[in-house]
């Protein structure tokens, strides 16, 4: 008999985030009123965060297959083949709401969660990246959030022992009250030793591993499925507390029991903890699961079934064990000082049964809870496309040199060294390219292969045109991998949007997915894992649509990777790709003209591919000495970055007559790269480009200690650096005027 206290009221149902029609669905499904524990379980499984109920129908349109894909979306992480019997396991996931409420712990547990997703599959994590979006620098809370989030990301990754090698940091008022923390983890596993969540075999022991269960994080997943209001700070108790030390032990213990062949299936306890992990293991394996909560290691006395099932205490795993390996597995966990308890078993009937103190507290159909959760086709509207801005209509507020000096010291374009120096980016001894380049490069243990890694998205483009913005996020990711010489393999997507119950937000979501799908198809760049974060709104105002794309590329020989710094004086600077002077939605327009307007630059995926394949070939056969992709800030900013990375300047030739100078230097046309080549090789290179029908222009020569734009005063590279490096430390030290 299931104890039915307290009585389930409409208020209680609403508090659990279930809509009346969803509750009716529960009643129809089980033919009776649920117990409180059952209501909690439904609420945990059917919320947006766990069920993807608003997004699933659209996510299915993403290309997820390809010759190298071993495991696409639906598991803890995606898996791709990187040759030599090895696989790369990776995923990106958001921890937005917790990081706003409690920045340090929210960010830390975001990193912890994504690392667990990767090592649950049998991979040793080799790199982390992140994409952070904060509110207006002038907002009184922004510094507090930046400081806490960065310390939390570092605090967890540094202690766990994984290098944090890349990422992005941006600021915009639309993230006020709802910052984004997207964390990506990348691991390496043996291709034939990947572990999955689907249980198999009846009567197999289900083992609880890791830290003890406490009352922290109860309802975390439901919180992530609701908007914020004025009372967000009162939600602090729903944020979990991270323990990277425990996670490091859990990693070593898990890899050891996997290596010893003890594991049938394994699932980490992330959102909705024990509930979600147990249901997923059963549902995916078409098996039932019975849990005995009396055996669950608890940190606190007197925890109820409801609390145990919904706790989001960190650093825990659930595993289906080979029965004959029980003693061996337990000994390994005891050696690492971790809890190990048999808390249930797999059963033939597809029921999810929870026992506690002699009572059955829940008895539910497992498939409907898990892979047959509700799905919505929410109504959506597409916003009108903004007009294309003619560069001739944009009056230059200042000269090109002044504009460049200003732009590189803006919050989005300035150096993020203050951030990434707080992350250990060299641990494990495989970091080939550190943060600050187009993509990070990490050697695959002992080489010669290398992984190239990056995260990208341009939210202002997505806001103006979700479809083009979605395309652009994928294209820029692909371009950044290409710019270091890597062959782009696959992506993970982390889709951050507002409230999907609003048709205009749903329109952004649908548009962005269409764009992502189109670009991924055209570039043979499948989506193998991902995460959706909706309801990113505070007091009715949504964030900029932010579909972060995390990309992985492969270098057959990491020593061939290209870097962006100018290498020596007297080399030719070549611009690859078409320049039209597209100022709509550019950083120039936003930062210097104070206009966030116009259509974003369109992405021609064929051009993107042709230009990228050409640049990659140049890098791999050693024809270029430096390579850099063009993105925010356009040509002049890219040139400045190449100069600052080396200390070597350059002298540039005049802009073409048919493009206004400011549009030429700061326009953000896509599919473009800068490379340098020895002067003697320019002719051959131009011919080669012509043969490949790739547009190329010789635009200048490296040398000297200044960047000299035509008709402008020379700008000393040391001065550029000072401005580029100056803003963020000064801001974080509180030395800049606040609002």
């Amino acid at each position, binding site marked *: 008999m299931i104890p039915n206290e307290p009585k389930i009221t409409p208020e209680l149902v609403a508090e659990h985030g279930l809509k009346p029609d969803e509750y009716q669905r529960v009643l129809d499904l089980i033919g009776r009123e649920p117990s409180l524990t059952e209501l909690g379980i439904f609420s945990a499984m059917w919320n947006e965060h766990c069920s993807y109920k608003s997004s699933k129908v659209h996510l299915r349109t993403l290309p997820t297959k390809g010759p190298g894909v071993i495991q696409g979306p639906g598991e803890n992480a995606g898996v791709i083949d990187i040759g030599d019997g090895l696989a790369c396991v990776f995923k990106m996931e958001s921890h937005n709401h917790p990081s706003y409420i409690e920045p340090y712990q929210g960010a830390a547990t975001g990193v912890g969660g994504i690392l667990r997703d990767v090592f649950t599959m049998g991979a040793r994590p080799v790199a982390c990246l992140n994409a952070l979006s904060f509110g207006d620098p002038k907002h009184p809370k922004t510094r507090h959030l930046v400081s806490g989030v960065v310390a939390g990301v570092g605090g967890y990754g540094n202690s766990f022992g994984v290098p944090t090698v890349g990422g992005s940091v941006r600021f915009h008022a639309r993230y006020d009250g709802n910052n984004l923390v997207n964390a990506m983890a990348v691991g390496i596993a043996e291709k034939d030793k990947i572990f999955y969540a689907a249980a198999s075999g009846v009567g197999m022991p289900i083992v609880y591993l890791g830290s003890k269960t406490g009352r922290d994080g109860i309802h975390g997943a439901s919180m992530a499925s609701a908007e914020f209001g004025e009372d967000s700070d009162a939600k602090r108790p729903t944020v979990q507390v991270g323990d990277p030390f425990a996670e490091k032990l859990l990693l070593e213990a898990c890899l050891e029991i996997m290596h010893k062949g003890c594991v049938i299936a394994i699932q980490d306890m992330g959102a909705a903890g024990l509930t979600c992990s147990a249901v997923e293991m059963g549902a995916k394996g078409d098996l039932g699961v019975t849990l005995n909560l009396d055996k669950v290691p608890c940190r606190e006395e007197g925890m109820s079934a409801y609390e145990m099932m919904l706790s989001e205490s960190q650093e825990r795993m659930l595993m289906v064990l080979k029965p004959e390996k029980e003693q061996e597995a337990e000994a390994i966990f005891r050696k690492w000082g971790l809890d190990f308890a048999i808390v249930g078993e797999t059963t033939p009937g597809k029921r999810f049964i929870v026992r506690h103190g002699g009572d059955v507290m829940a008895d539910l159909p497992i498939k409907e809870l898990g892979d047959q959760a509700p799905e919505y086709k929410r109504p959506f509207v597409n916003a009108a496309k903004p007009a294309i801005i003619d560069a001739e209509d944009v009056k230059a507020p200042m000269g090109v040199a002044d504009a460049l000096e200003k732009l590189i010291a803006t919050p989005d374009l300035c150096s993020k060294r203050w951030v990434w120096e707080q992350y*250990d980016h060299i*641990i494990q*001894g495989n970091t080939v390219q550190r943060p600050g380049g187009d993509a990070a490069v990490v050697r695959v243990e002992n080489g010669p292969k290398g992984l190239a890694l990056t995260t990208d998205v341009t939210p202002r483009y997505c806001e103006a045109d979700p479809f083009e913005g979605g395309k652009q996020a994928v294209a820029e990711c692909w371009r950044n991998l290409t710019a270091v010489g890597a062959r782009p393999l696959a992506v993970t997507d982390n889709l951050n949007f507002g409230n999907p119950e609003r048709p205009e937000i749903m329109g952004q979501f649908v548009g962005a997915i269409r764009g992502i799908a189109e670009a991924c198809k055209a570039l043979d760049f499948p989506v193998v894992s991902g995460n959706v974060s909706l309801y990113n709104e505070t007091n009715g105002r949504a964030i900029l649509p932010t579909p972060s794309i995390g990309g992985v590329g492969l270098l057959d020989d990491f020593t061939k990777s290209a870097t962006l710094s100018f290498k020596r004086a007297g080399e030719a600077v070549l611009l690859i790709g078409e320049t039209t002077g597209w100022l709509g939605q550019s950083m120039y327009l936003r930062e210097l003209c104070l206009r966030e307007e116009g259509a974003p630059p369109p992405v021609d995926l064929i051009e993107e591919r042709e230009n990228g394949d050409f640049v990659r070939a140049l890098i791999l056969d050693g024809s270029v000495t430096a390579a850099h992709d063009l993105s925010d800030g356009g040509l002049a900013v890219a040139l400045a970055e190449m100069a600052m990375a080396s200390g070597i300047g350059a002298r540039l030739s005049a802009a073409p007559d048919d493009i206004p100078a400011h549009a030429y230097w700061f326009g953000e046309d896509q599919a473009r790269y800068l490379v340098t080549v020895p002067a003697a090789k320019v002719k051959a290179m131009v011919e080669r480009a012509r043969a490949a029908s790739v547009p190329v222009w010789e635009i200048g020569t490296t040398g000297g200690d200044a960047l000299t734009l035509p008709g402008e005063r020379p700008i000393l590279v040391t001065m550029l650096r000072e401005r580029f490096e100056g803003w963020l430390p000064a801001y974080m030290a509180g030395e800049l005027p606040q609002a």
Partner: protein
Amino acid sequence: MKAAVVVFPGINRERDMARTLALVSGVAPAMVWHADTALPPGTDLVVIPGGFSYGDYLRCGAIAARSPIMEAVRAHAAKGGLTLGVCNGFQILCEAGLLPGVLMRNARLRFICRDVYLRVEHSDSPFTRGYNAGQVIRVPVAHGEGNYIADADTIVRLEGEGRVLFRYCSPEGDLDPAWNVNGATNAIAGIVGERGNVLGMMPHPENHVEAALGVTDGRGLFAGLVEALKRAA
């Protein structure tokens, strides 16, 4: 070289260290678990690598310093055996009383990971014989608590006895507060014990040993140790 790398729970640079030792000496080190009570017979170098032993949840290194294996490490050091502690290893050696002083939070109160320049102060130590005195080497740091401090008498003794082996400096080798990455007293980056056989240092020479990854300035420390042990044998 017969090296042993001590692994405490939460140590995380043990694989970096083991790889470097194998690369430079040609022999893989023994990995010794903190709960063990003895080092492998014939161990001639004990290395305590970096990381966050026991999460650094108490003072850094304080719990590890009281682990079972530390008795054996103490005995090894007391016999004159070479002992190297890097980063958390340095903190552990200080907490274990094998080296004087303590590592406080970085002067700017933030974790910092970047390449720094070190001036090698003396080359007559088994740890620095691979370098010349006054040579400047570039190696990375990655720590939140590397700000070395000791009482004034200890500092005077360390300096007087030539026990400061590495100092943070400018690329040209000059002492300059701007280049003292964590604010350490006298820009101290690494010191040896009274007998010169125990070295603790904050930077990570083990991460700068391969030409393919860029800088190889850390290699000299390990190559020097191999040489010193060969001569002693």
